[in-house]
């Protein structure tokens, strides 16, 4: 009897335990269902928002993004414009440099294009008129025997009007003695004085001065000297001197050759 009671109580306990387990299972399922429902509800809230507000938000973000891009592009344009300005300035500088080099090349080319003394003087005259822009000037050469400078080519000045200048005397003589160029302090206020030119450039082979180029007046439209003029003066100082010197040597040798040939012809006939 007792054993039957114990068995019944045990079964009852098992029944209660089973029901408790089932209840727990149901609770868990319900909890799961409610969680899904909550998620659905949350999604439902979002889905149900005003589409115009959403579009406005999207567009605002897009505008901000485009604004950033615009600022970047504007900054790039400014950089490119600055670079363009630099290039334009550089282009003008290179163009000027190109012109200056062309002038120097032409002057040098022309000076060494002949061995005729008169032609060399003519070319120096052309360079001084056309490339430097002088109106009155002279080329004076040093007579080694008398140590005096004498004009051998002039433009806008009577050759006779120019004095013979002893080496070392006055502006011209000092330039020939020292080999240093002379430039009047103010070209615009310079007053014509044959003994004191506006510019005096020594014509020299290395340190040996063979003469000078003296300038008394610039062309009307030439107000001042430009940097390229000083380069031309430097070029003239050397190249004109060698051109004059070699043409003189050539003329002398031609003359001597002609004389010798005359003697040979006389002796062989």
């Amino acid at each position: 009897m007792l054993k039957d009671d114990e068995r019944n109580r045990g079964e009852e306990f098992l029944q209660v335990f089973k029901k408790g387990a089932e209840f727990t299972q149901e609770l868990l399922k319900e909890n799961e269902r409610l969680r899904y429902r909550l998620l659905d509800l949350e999604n439902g809230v979002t889905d149900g928002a005003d589409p115009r507000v959403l579009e406005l938000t999207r567009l605002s973000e897009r505008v901000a993004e485009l604004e950033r891009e615009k600022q970047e592009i504007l900054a790039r344009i400014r950089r490119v414009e600055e670079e363009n300005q630099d290039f334009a300035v550089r282009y003008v500088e290179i163009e000027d440099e190109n012109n200056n080099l062309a002038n120097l090349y032409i002057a040098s080319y022309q000076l060494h294009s002949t061995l005729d003394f008169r032609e060399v003087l003519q070319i120096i005259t052309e360079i001084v008129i056309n490339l430097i822009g002088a109106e009155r000037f002279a080329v004076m050469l040093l007579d080694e025997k008398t140590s005096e400078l004498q004009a051998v080519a002039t433009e806008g000045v009577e050759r006779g009007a120019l004095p013979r200048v002893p080496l070392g005397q006055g502006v011209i003589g000092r330039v020939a003695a020292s080999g240093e160029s002379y430039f009047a302090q103010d070209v615009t206020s310079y007053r014509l004085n044959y003994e004191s030119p506006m510019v005096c450039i020594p014509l020299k082979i290395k340190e040996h001065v063979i003469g000078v180029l003296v300038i008394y007046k610039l062309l009307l439209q030439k107000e001042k000297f430009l940097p390229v003029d000083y380069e031309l003066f430097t070029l003239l100082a050397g190249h004109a001197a060698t051109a004059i010197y070699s043409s003189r040597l050539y003329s002398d040798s031609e003359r001597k050759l002609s004389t010798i040939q005359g003697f040979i012809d006389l002796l062989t006939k």
Partner: protein
Amino acid sequence: MSEYNVLIIEDSPTMRQLITFALKRIRGMRIVEANDGVDGLKKLSAEHFDLILTDINMPIMDGLKLVSLVRNDAVYHDVPIVVITTEGAQEDRERALSLGANDYITKPIQPTRMVELVKELLNIQ
């Protein structure tokens, strides 16, 4: 192939070389040189030129006489002429222009200015 035929009439070889040097920077430029006005007229009669650059002070025939003759020629009546001279005075400029020159450049020439002027007269961009 050259597109523009330009005649330079100038007695100074230095100036001729300087002008040629500058103008050859323009694409399609063919340059013919003449030593004086008479030489220039010979070359003008031998072929057609699109532009003439001439010095004023030249031996045999000066630039002003040449401008006057060219302007009276039916073939060259409208061809642009640029006068180059050492004179900067207004009266020389006016004289050259009254004879029919289109423009005037003074020595020492500015190559950049000359190139711009030639391009303008030949309608080169």
